[in-house]
């Protein structure tokens, strides 16, 4: 190994790659653009849909309205609801999404209630249909309030204290600090994105520098030079690693920028709308993350990036052409994503076993680190095993470069 020769190969490959449009797109343009598009696009569309649903108001049909004039009066007074005329096909209309919810009442509902007979009111909705679900929740809320008002009225009539229905208060209080909430909500998502970016950023240069060179005939030219093959491998490997890391860095900068701008933007919108649903939606956009956790994520991603670079170089070196390399590297993305997705599943926790599974271990430990939990023995184990996998990957890659049946595969 000769570092000067490696540097010569590295600098040349870097120059070459920077002149390749495909690499520029996959390492710089795509990761920079995809985050804002995803966050803004998704955010804007979701906010719009929710706002529209609220502006329209929930249309509700009262079945058996003749027996409940007071209830209908109260419902009509509420701006959240639009009461529509009663027809017989209300179940069909809910299924057709023409009607969001219906309230089924017995014919003599209010008369029953007045004399203290137990009566049942049913809220009909369509499970899985978002607008219908929101409507059902709103209608339930309204009915509960209406019931409470009735109870309180009765207690007052009899001169009894209101506490009679509420022997104690029940409250819910969150003890998780904000960064823990952030870690739990997007902590799984961040390593997942990083893993994919790392891989996709390395993919095009890796294919171009091996199968691409074979296809264009420059690989043989390069091997005619007196420098030993290990220098060529390392020069190429460092180029791929650079692309992989660059992809990640561009994506992270873009993501942080988007979060900063997007956070304030959505917060402003939500305040203007003054609706509970929009507020909760925008609050989800800006969970705080432990910066030390972010550094930890980068430290642990590094050996995985090395592993990806070596793996992709090896696989695409085996291919005769760029096209063949694509057909090998494409499916590999899925192989990489599966363990990353498993890390997002609830119930899969870090253990001595899962700490040895590549990619899954990264996904799991990142989730913990981002929420401020530093499990040092596992972190050490994961870093060590990742380094080992990376070293094996590199060794295999060097071996492949020395195999003439691979280099001159006809």
């Amino acid at each position, binding site marked *: 190994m000769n570092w000067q020769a490696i540097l010569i190969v590295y600098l040349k490959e870097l120059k070459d790659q920077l002149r390749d449009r495909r690499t520029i797109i996959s390492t710089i343009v795509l990761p920079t653009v995809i985050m804002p598009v995803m966050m803004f696009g998704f955010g804007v569309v979701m906010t719009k849909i929710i706002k529209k649903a609220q502006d329209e108001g929930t249309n509700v049909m009262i079945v058996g309205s003749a027996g409940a004039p007071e209830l209908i009066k109260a419902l009509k007074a509420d701006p959240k609801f639009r009461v529509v005329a009663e027809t017989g096909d209300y179940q069909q209309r809910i299924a057709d999404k023409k009607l969001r919810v219906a309230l089924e009442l017995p014919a003599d509902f209010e008369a029953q209630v007045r004399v203290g007979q137990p009566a049942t009111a049913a809220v009909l909705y369509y499970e899985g249909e978002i607008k219908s679900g929101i409507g059902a929740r709103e209608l339930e809320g309204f009915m509960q309030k209406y019931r409470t008002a009735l109870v309180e009225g009765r207690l007052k009539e009899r001169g009894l204290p209101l506490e009679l229905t509420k022997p104690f208060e029940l409250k819910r209080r969150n003890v998780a600090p904000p960064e823990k909430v952030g870690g739990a909500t997007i902590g799984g998502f961040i390593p997942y994105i990083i893993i994919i970016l790392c891989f996709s950023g390395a993919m095009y240069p890796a294919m171009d520098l091996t199968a691409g060179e074979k296809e264009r*005939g420059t690989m*043989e030219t390069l091997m*005619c*030079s*007196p*420098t*030993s093959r290990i220098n060529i491998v390392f020069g190429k490997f460092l180029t791929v690693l650079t692309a992989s890391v660059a992809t990640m860095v561009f994506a992270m900068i873009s993501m942080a920028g988007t979060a900063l701008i997007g956070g304030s933007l959505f917060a402003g919108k939500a305040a203007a709308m003054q609706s509970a649903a929009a507020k909760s939606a925008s609050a989800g956009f800006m969970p705080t993350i432990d910066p030390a956790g972010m550094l930890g994520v980068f430290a642990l991603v590094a050996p995985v990036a090395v592993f990806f670079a070596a793996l992709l170089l090896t696989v695409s070196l085996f291919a005769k052409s760029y096209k063949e390399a694509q057909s090998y590297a494409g499916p590999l993305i899925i192989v990489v994503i599966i363990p990353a997705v498993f890390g997002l599943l609830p119930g899969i926790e870090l253990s001595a076993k899962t700490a040895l599974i590549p990619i899954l271990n990264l996904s799991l430990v990142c989730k913990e680190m981002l929420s401020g939990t530093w499990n040092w023995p596992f972190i050490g184990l994961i870093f060590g095993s990742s380094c080992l996998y990376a070293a094996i990957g590199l060794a295999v890659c060097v071996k492949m470069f020395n195999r003439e049946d691979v280099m*001159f595969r006809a």
Partner: protein
Amino acid sequence: MYLVYFVVTPNPMIEAHNLTKTFKDKKRGVITAVDNVSFTCRPGQIYGLLGANGAGKTTTLRLLATLLQPTTGTCVIAGHDTVRASEQVRAQVGFLAASTALYGRLTAREMITYFGELNGMGDDAIHARIKQLAGELDMHEFLDRRCDKFSTGMKQKTSIARTLVHDPAVMIFDEPTLGLDVMTARAIVKFVRRCRERGKTVIYSTHVMSEVEKLCDIIGIIHDGRLVTEGTLPQLRERYAEPDMEEIFVKAVGGEAAIAAALNR
């Protein structure tokens, strides 16, 4: 007599002994691409390797250039074994073939500079060498343009400059005039001749008979992986009682039927 021979002839620069190269193929089993080939080549000589497509020329040359390792046999170039000291061999060899292409996204100057650097040359030496080669090969006009926009002739000239940047003692040209127009082909033949005048050892493979007649000091005819005959042009004419190179070639490989059979394989 023998003593005189040794004094006037310099030591061989290339010594190939019983080179054999076999490949494993899933469908066809073991293929012997080069079969027990031996020859030597001295400085100031052009050794012409003549053979049909698939005869084993390229594989032989790749063995010399250390791109492949012989299955059996040895080859010594400039005193270094091609297997045990491949890096030293490559430092003495310039290899040019149809399969050694240029980096399309680099300019001709960058391409030549890169290979100069890989050969351990300093910036000044590379700069001077590029100036010299560009003059000899008439490349100044396109030196700073990107290779992917070049014509075949411009590409070949750049490739030659790339091959020669480190001033190797041995040059291996594998069908260098293939697909070139007459003018460029002539320029390249002239250039190869000039290399001989400078005392370089040149191996030149081709299937163009006229080039062999004009250029080569020693001609080796390769067929089906075997070196079937070897000698100077007058020697071959005498041996096969034919004045024409093409007729000599056909007779040497065992008639037209043998060529057809080899091509079908």
